[in-house]
């Protein structure tokens, strides 16, 4: 039964990157802020940081990093004069390290909340009418309290999509969250979905010793990326041993006594696979299903995303939505940006959300990163463009590091020379892309990049050379 009815300035539902940033910014702006989050860690306690910190960005990057080190040490140091013997994997320790990183970060957020005077409630929130939020305990269905507020920010995030043909059981057929917690390295690992999450998880377990088969429904690999980048990435992944199969429709996946039996169809017909583990990584859906009571009348679109206007407000006055709940790339930095803007809007500003220059990153090795538009999208729009490509194997630093698969591709408007898209496959692409985002924020031309001094020897020089290449003036590739 509803007990206390506390009133605050702002209630934030969800403490993922969008939510916790929004809460901190609201507190900084002087608002009395309450944040409700329902995440339960392995021990059943509260853990702030949402999917990003607990089950997504952070743990995956931790395992990618660890597994990359393992892979490097195991396979390729002899040519640098380092002999290694007796390399072993202690998977529980690797997982435990990942968990430690997670708790370090969730503790950090708890500390930030405390220092900003943000009241935290561990519970499941449901939006009622009249700007009230009902909070239930995470462990049971009984209502514990109802609170109200002048402003509500919904940041409940998203969850992995389940498919009926491969229902997850948390141990053998798993979603991306449980895929980060296998107790042993699967001998054969199937992954449904060769998108960003599928490629990253596939890379982790491949490096740790699994035979990985990626089953992608689309006919082309990584369609969200520029064609050249997707093609290069696919080549690299396949060279590393990832088995990428396109145009595959999974018909069924069942756990038998010994393994998982999966049946899929492609243009060649029916196929059967026997797997030790199966990951379902076909995308994520917004957590809007149980988010509100019917009388709250929150407007969703046909895909379940919460409808918002340019300033982040839903159809209900004073109720905002940010992050994966709303349309747009499901990226933490997009949610963070929205969290900051919505806090400012509550404070009276009228900032508009701007999605033009959001970078995307895939943390495999080589990494993939891009910002702006792809060549295929620009050509389809009939835009007149010039393209400059520079391969990492012409970059001295990449050669030194023995990390030379990759390329930088810069696309500029043919008349104005304005940079429209920058696409990178290669080591450290996640860091290199920042220069491109900044340049594009200032409407840079490829010439601006070409006339900016880049330190030598660096990977960043590839950006410089690609910019020169737009004008057919690259210096380190023959013509």
């Amino acid at each position: 039964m509803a007990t206390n009815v506390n009133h605050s300035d702002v209630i934030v539902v969800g403490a993922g990157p969008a939510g916790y940033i929004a809460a901190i910014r609201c507190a900084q702006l002087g608002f009395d802020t309450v944040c409700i989050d329902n995440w339960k860690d392995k021990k059943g306690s509260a853990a702030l940081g949402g999917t990003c910190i607990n089950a997504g960005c952070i743990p995956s990057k931790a395992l990618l990093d660890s597994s990359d080190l393992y892979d490097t040490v195991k396979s390729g140091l002899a040519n640098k004069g380092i002999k290694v013997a007796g390399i072993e994997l202690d998977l529980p320790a690797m997982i435990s390290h990942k968990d430690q990183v997670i708790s370090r970060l969730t503790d950090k957020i708890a500390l930030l909340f405390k220092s900003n005077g943000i009241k935290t409630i561990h519970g499941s929130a449901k939006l009622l009418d009249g700007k009230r939020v009902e909070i239930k305990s995470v462990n049971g269905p009984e209502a514990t309290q109802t609170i109200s507020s002048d402003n509500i920010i919904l940041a409940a995030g998203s969850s992995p999509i389940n498919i009926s043909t491969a229902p997850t059981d948390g141990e053998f057929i798993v979603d991306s969250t449980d895929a980060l917690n296998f107790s042993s390295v699967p001998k054969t690992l199937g992954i449904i979905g060769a998108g960003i999450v599928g490629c990253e998880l596939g890379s982790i377990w491949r490096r740790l010793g699994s035979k990985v088969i990626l089953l992608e429904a689309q006919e082309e690999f990584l369609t969200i990326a520029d064609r050249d980048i997707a093609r290069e990435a696919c080549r690299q992944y396949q060279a590393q041993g990832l088995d990428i199969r396109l145009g595959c429709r999974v018909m069924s996946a069942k756990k038998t006594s010994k393994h998982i039996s999966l049946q899929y169809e492609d243009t060649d017909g029916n196929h059967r696979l026997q797997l030790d583990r199966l990951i379902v990584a076909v995308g994520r859906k917004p957590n809007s299903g149980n988010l509100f009571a019917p009388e709250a009348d929150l407007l969703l679109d046909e895909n379940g995303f919460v409808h918002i206007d340019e300033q982040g407000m839903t159809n209900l006055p004073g109720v905002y939505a940010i992050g994966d709940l709303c349309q747009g790339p499901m990226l933490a930095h997009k949610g963070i940006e929205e969290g900051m803007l919505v806090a400012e809007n509550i404070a009276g500003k009228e900032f508009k959300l701007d999605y033009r220059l959001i970078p995307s990153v895939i943390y495999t090795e080589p990494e993939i990163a891009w910002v702006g538009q792809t060549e295929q999208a620009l050509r389809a729009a009939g835009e007149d463009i010039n393209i400059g490509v520079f391969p990492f194997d012409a970059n001295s630093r990449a050669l030194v590091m023995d990390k030379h698969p990759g390329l930088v591709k810069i696309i500029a408007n043919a008349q104005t020379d304005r940079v429209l898209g920058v696409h990178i496959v290669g080591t450290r692409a996640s860091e290199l892309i920042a220069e491109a985002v900044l340049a594009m924020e200032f409407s840079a031309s490829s010439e601006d990049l070409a006339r900016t001094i880049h330190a030598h020897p660096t990977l960043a020089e590839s950006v410089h050379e690609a910019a020169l290449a737009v004008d057919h003036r690259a210096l380190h590739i023959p013509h």
Partner: protein
Amino acid sequence: MTIEVLVPNLPESVADAVLVAWHKQPGDSVQKDDNLVDLETDKIVLEVPAPENGILKSIDQPNGATVSSGQLLAIIDVNGSEEPISAIDGSPNIGRQAPTLSPSVRRLIKENNLNPSSIIGTGRDGRLTKVDVLNFLETQNNNSKQTTSAQVESANVIENKTPVLTKPGENRPQQRVPMTRLRARVAQRLLQAQQNAAMLTTFNEVNLNSVIALRNQYKSHFENQHEIKLGFMSFFVKASIEALKRFPIINASVDEEDIIYHGYYDVGIAVSTERGLLVPILRDADQLDFANIEKAIAGFGKKVRDGNISVDDLTGGTFTITNGGTFGSMMSTPILNPPQSAILGMHAIKDRPIVENNEIVIRPMMYLALSYDHRIIDGREAVQFLSSIKEYLEDPARLLLSI
């Protein structure tokens, strides 16, 4: 604490203004009344002063933006703004410089010897981007490709040869400069005037002997009394007004199918400036005496030179007087200033032989021109109106006696 700098109220006839150039950038300290930005309307360039001392916090509209009354231009931080600290040698503190030019822009500016402040920037905070400079160069240096190709084509037809690369017109010096907004607007209105009115001109000549004699007799007295020189314009204004009272149709306007008779006399005095033609208005000129007319005209002259003329000064008017004589024009056909129906043209005063009392004498003569809208003014009224002006000027006593 921050304050907003808004676009000043533009009068009704002016829809919007173009933001020409910011003189301050975010981070600069500004003093009260410092000119922050120039806004160009159809008629004049407005300056927007800083309302308070402070630091310019942010700019809301970039160079080249179109703005309307009351729109937010900038925000000034007035909290904690200190007096600018002078450097030891007494020179004023330099605020943050204008945004640095990007590398490609620097190269283009240097190669083409350009002045960056003459180019409108469309980048962040009004920064110049490469394309801004490229567009500027294109409008400046465009050779008329159409005429060259047409010439080549006709050459081909005549000579029946395959085209050679020499193009006849290519090396002739030519410079394409876009019209300023003011000139473009003036051009538009002049064209409109010609197209909408049935415009023609009637001429007469006036013997300014009496006026000159009057001036010579009383000029020092006048100047001592009124602290302004007694010029010719006051005579012409007075004469025009008396004539307008006798022929009210000259002071009227056409509106669709109606004639609007104005019960007041707002006389515009056309002034030529380097930016173009400006016509400040003497309001209720019938109620001004000679001295006040001269003072008002001198006042406008100063305002125009100082760049202070306001849109209100230039709006309205029921009749215009233009003086081409200052440049030596002997005779001309002035264009109407819509929606007015008539305009009086004054010209150079030249000693000419005329006949008086059956004798040839030399008198200071001026040709007068009256362009008028034949839709509402008939030839008879136009001619008689101009004759009246001539009579008043040749015998100023008639102005006194209203005859």
